[in-house]
């Protein structure tokens, strides 16, 4: 009994009031849920960015055609068959590192598909949790968004 008490006291002294890092886990909140035409996470990265006004972080992925093109061409004339996918997450503080922010809940996933030269690229947008396809009736805004995505240059990776 005495030993037990002593052990409990020691444990209280040593074990309890120390802070510990959050245990290892996958970034569950950032998981993409919903029916998407492609899985962008299976693709390679073109580049990534954040937006300091909306506190979001985005990763631009591409299928093989898109990535090969973006890494070797400064222009925006992606070949037919190229698909770009932009995943945008809300940012959250990294529980492990003061000084870092990491992806929180997914906000949108956008796809730009290049069909044949001369034809305007197809644009699809998915939003929310789970990700559900949204439609827009504003062709000018869509065209601007497509141009924005196509004009992102590849991150330099020597």
């Amino acid at each position, binding site marked *: 009994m005495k030993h037990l008490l002593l052990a409990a006291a020691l444990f209280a002294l040593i074990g309890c009031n120390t802070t510990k890092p959050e245990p290892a886990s996958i*970034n569950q909140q950032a998981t993409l849920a919903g029916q998407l035409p492609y899985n962008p*996470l*299976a693709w390679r990265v073109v580049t990534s960015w954040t*937006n*300091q006004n*909306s506190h979001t972080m985005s990763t631009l992925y591409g299928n093989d055609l898109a990535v090969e093109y973006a890494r070797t061409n400064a222009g925006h004339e992606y070949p037919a068959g190229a698909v770009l996918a932009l995943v945008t997450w809300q940012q959250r503080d*990294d529980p492990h*590192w003061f000084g870092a922010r990491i992806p929180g809940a997914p906000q949108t996933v956008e796809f730009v598909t290049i069909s044949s030269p001369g034809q305007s690229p197809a644009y699809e947008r998915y939003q929310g949790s789970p990700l559900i396809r949204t439609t827009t009736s504003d062709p000018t805004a869509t065209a601007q968004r497509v141009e924005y995505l196509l004009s992102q240059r590849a*991150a330099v990776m020597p």
Partner: protein
Amino acid sequence: MSSRSSTRLLMFLVLAGFLGLVVMQCVRPPLENPPVTADLQAPPEVKRILRNSCYGCHSNETKLPWFDQVAPAYWLVTHDVKEARRHLNFSEIGKLPAAQQKAALYEAVNFVQLGEMPLHSYTLVHPDAKVSPEDLAVLKNYLHPPAPAPAPDDAVKTAADTQYDKWIHASSAALTVQPALNGITYFPDYKNWKVIATTDRFDNNTLRVISGNDVAIRAIAEHHINPWPDGTVFAKIAWAKQVEANGDVRSGAFIQVEFMIKDSQKYAATKGWGYARWRGMDLKPYGKDANFANECVSCHSPVRGNDYVYTFPLAGQLGGSR
């Protein structure tokens, strides 16, 4: 008879122990306080916290209480103080470039937040040295005060543009990259690995992408990430932040790529992971000598319970498309 001899034995042991303790006091590695040459410049409320919780070991102003002056405690304390000063010395921190000072302070605050510092063995005998949540908030606010979002910077943009133009027009001929100083060879394929995380670092003004080789991706799919299996390799790629007028912060100039390679046997000396880092567009191996990896291990130590990995990986890379 037998009780008498055991009393004698006990007395002998006590005497021997006492004598041993006395003899121990003669062995005193010196612990001096060198002059304070470049003390940390910080507001008084920040200095108060650091003085109270860190300066005991991480400065040239060590004052040992009597119970730390007695060997063998003295030996332990002397060793700890020397080790502490080598890692971070607030009395000399002013000599470092501003960016390195900032990095050291961020690391210190994170070590406090992760429960790594002050050392548990220290706070047991010096309970006043514990950093309260309020004090931790003061330190964080000092390092990262509320501030308006940064504006675009022409020099940053020019540097990124120049680098990009050179890179995008370069021939695809592979660069010859020297091995790291610990013998680890470069992994040119890191750019084709799947992404497991992105980080936005306001402590050092970089954006990062972390990619993982096939072993890493399979481990994530199987939720087998603590410990990670041998053969796992991560690449962490860092770029300078490039602020645009619309609030986008792009991946600007490439800074470095660094790797963690899991092999519990081969890299046992660095806790099961090999570390390597190549900097700049010429991919120059980082460090002065093969011991550079000690820096990496030391910084990753607070997450030893997570197999020394800070990252919370994204899952779903192996999910089908359509």
